[in-house]
């Protein structure tokens, strides 16, 4: 435990000194402000933009898209995973497909999706689901595979219907695995949606960054960038801690 705390302190010190170093390099003119601006300027730009409300529309657009994609991926992915788990023949063909799914850069489908669905929220949601859902399917399968046989026997002894077995036994037992899938799904949906907005879109935070870049507005660009990265880090961090708690509660029994 001491060792972990020491690592945490050193980690924070390393990150803090990197930020201080960058700040000093910018203030001393070692770094061209046209390339990177000082971290303190990034923070003040972020605060200004959020305070003035000019980002509100982008924030609403981006997060509603991400949440929609995430929810669809979780529901669809869990359902698909449960179905594939029940049908061994389907599983035999689905396994190699899932194993190589993430080797395909899903993102290259985005231009086709835009052509198919028009520029707007729809192709972004589909892109988010395409990047997130397979992670949920994979973790659902591994969760269902790892349900202890004794629990399944218990369900049979109590003559539970398949629906009740699923709701009362399988899902709770598989929860830690499912949660890992949900965590991945959130970060994949976030990455997919923001990348889509960045490359080809008219709204959202990703678009705000690429628009600021193309109009040489570095201050705005770094402000929005910092905001997006902070949100991503906080969201992933919260889920990471939550996941650890779940796993620990499970191991305590």
């Amino acid at each position: 435990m001491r060792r972990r705390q020491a690592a945490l302190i050193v980690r924070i010190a390393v990150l803090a000194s990197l930020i201080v170093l960058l700040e000093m390099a910018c203030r001393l003119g070692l770094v061209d402000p046209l390339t990177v601006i000082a971290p303190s300027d990034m923070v003040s730009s972020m605060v200004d933009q959020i305070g003035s409300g000019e980002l509100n529309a982008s924030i609403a657009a981006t997060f509603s898209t991400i949440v929609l994609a995430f929810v669809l991926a979780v529901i669809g992915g869990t359902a698909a995973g449960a179905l594939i788990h029940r049908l061994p023949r389907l599983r035999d063909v689905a396994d190699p497909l899932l194993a190589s799914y993430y080797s395909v850069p899903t993102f290259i489908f985005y231009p086709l999706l835009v052509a198919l669905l028009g520029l707007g929220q729809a192709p972004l949601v589909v892109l988010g689901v395409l990047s997130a859902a397979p992670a949920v399917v994979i973790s659902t399968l591994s969760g269902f595979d790892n349900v202890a046989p004794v629990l399944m026997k218990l369900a049979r002894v109590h003559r539970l219907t398949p629906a009740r077995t699923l709701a009362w036994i399988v899902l709770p037992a598989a929860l830690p695995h499912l949660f890992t899938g949900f965590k991945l799904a959130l970060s994949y949906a976030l990455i997919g949606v923001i990348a889509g907005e960045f490359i080809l879109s008219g709204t959202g935070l990703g678009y705000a960054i690429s628009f600021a870049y193309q109009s040489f507005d570095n201050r705005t660009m770094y402000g929005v960038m910092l905001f997006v990265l902070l949100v991503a880090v906080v969201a992933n961090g919260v889920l990471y801690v939550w996941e650890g708690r779940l796993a620990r509660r499970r191991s305590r029994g």
Partner: protein
Amino acid sequence: MSGLSLGKNQPRLASRRRVRAVDTTVLVLVMLSLWQAIGSWTRGVAVSPPLQTLVYLVGLLQTSMFWDHAVATLQAFLLAFVLSALMGLALGLIFGVRRFAGEVAEPILAGFYTIPKVTLYPVVLLLFGLGMSAKVAFGVMHGLVPMTLFTLGAVRNLSPVLVRTARVLQLSPGRTMRWVLVPACLPDIVNGLRISFSLSLLGVLIGEMFSSQRGLGFLLVNGMAQHNVPLSTAIVTVIVAVAIAANTLMLRVGRRFGRPDA
């Protein structure tokens, strides 16, 4: 991943294989007809149907224009992949052997892995300028972390006996790496290479899709902008085929190294 362990008796395994071959064929046919359905439903405005795409692709493969762009992507990608593999391997070994440094670095790397790196692409462009080096740098940003994390995990989970043996034999750090660490971690290293391969490809392609004049990513976006649907569908098909082929190959290689008794 695939449950091959069931095949205790040979005939059952063979029939299972046959069923699987039939099912795979059915699945491929379903996917192709879905592709065809989307193509004809939208009358080729968004996606061109499979057969038409194939014909177009054969023609495209004979133009020098396509190969110019493909070579540009390939160069950037190979450079990015080799750089992330070598640097990731070195970092992973260092962080794996120096436990404390590894404990400090791992959450930072894992955090970096989950952030939307595309938002950082303008910074890469400002630092490296438009062109090849920015694409390569962005590819490395995607590919380096998984390689490092996989190698780190492999070294950390290494049996202590191996490390002690190296110490008893008084191997130098370089030789320990060359003769003990790398061979012992090979399955995980191959896995890391596989993930790193697809992510650095993704990084390079995204780089090309955003303010670039060369490469397959540019060709794809450009095809969309010019309403040249067969072109963009063909590019997507090529990339998907190459990615799946490379991944399957590396999965096979990884499995071979994965069995110590083989």
